[in-house]
């Protein structure tokens, strides 16, 4: 499978463990369509209220509608660990 024509999801921190991978190439489109195609247990975690999203390195607001275009990178960021 070539990644051209695709977008990318990035799973950080414990989300990588839950996803079983750090990145996933996906077909561009509205985020809800993309999540619907994932393992529901993972989708629930990705939508957790403490998980933030960043599109191409820029944080998204809480209720922003997300539609991924070709080449976009959408990261799911759980709370940082601090310390």
């Amino acid at each position, binding site marked *: 499978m070539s990644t051209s024509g695709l977008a990318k999801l990035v799973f950080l921190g*414990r989300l*990588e463990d839950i996803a079983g991978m750090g990145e996933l190439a996906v077909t561009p489109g509205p985020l809800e369509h993309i999540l619907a195609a994932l393992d529901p247990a993972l989708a629930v975690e990705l939508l957790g209220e403490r998980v933030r999203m960043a599109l191409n*390195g820029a944080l998204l607001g809480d209720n922003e509608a997300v539609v991924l275009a070709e080449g976009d990178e959408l990261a799911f960021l759980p*709370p*940082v660990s*601090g310390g």
Partner: protein
Amino acid sequence: MPDSGAAVRLLGEGFSPAEEMATFTAAHPEAGGIVSFLGQVRAEPGAHAVEALELKHYAAMTLPGMEALAAATRKRWALDGLLIIHRYGVMRAGDPIVLVAAAARHRRDAFAAADFAMDHLKSQSWFWKREKTASGWRWIEPRPDDHRDRARW
């Protein structure tokens, strides 16, 4: 960013805090005072001993975030120089994790800048940490202290 006098580095390999401090100090003869913070992997004996610590970063955001923090720190205090070095990857007891150094004409500026940078690095930087103990790897959740620390400023 040589013009701003801030050096920010995100490293996947170990570094020598003493060498970094010697270089930074030599580069700032005009500063009367240099405050540094060194964070290292704590060596703890016993059953809860951390065998290894891993920090993960996110290339698209972690270093840019550290650079923005350095710029904000330099804007807020009168500094001659600012150094921020942070590790990612797997580390063991005694390994340095983070080094922040602030050089200033006035002692108070250097203390406040290093303290401010550390509070924000710890609570806002894009790092995810997991620790390996006898019971395996475990992700570390944020502490309430981190938010309290950041709220000081």
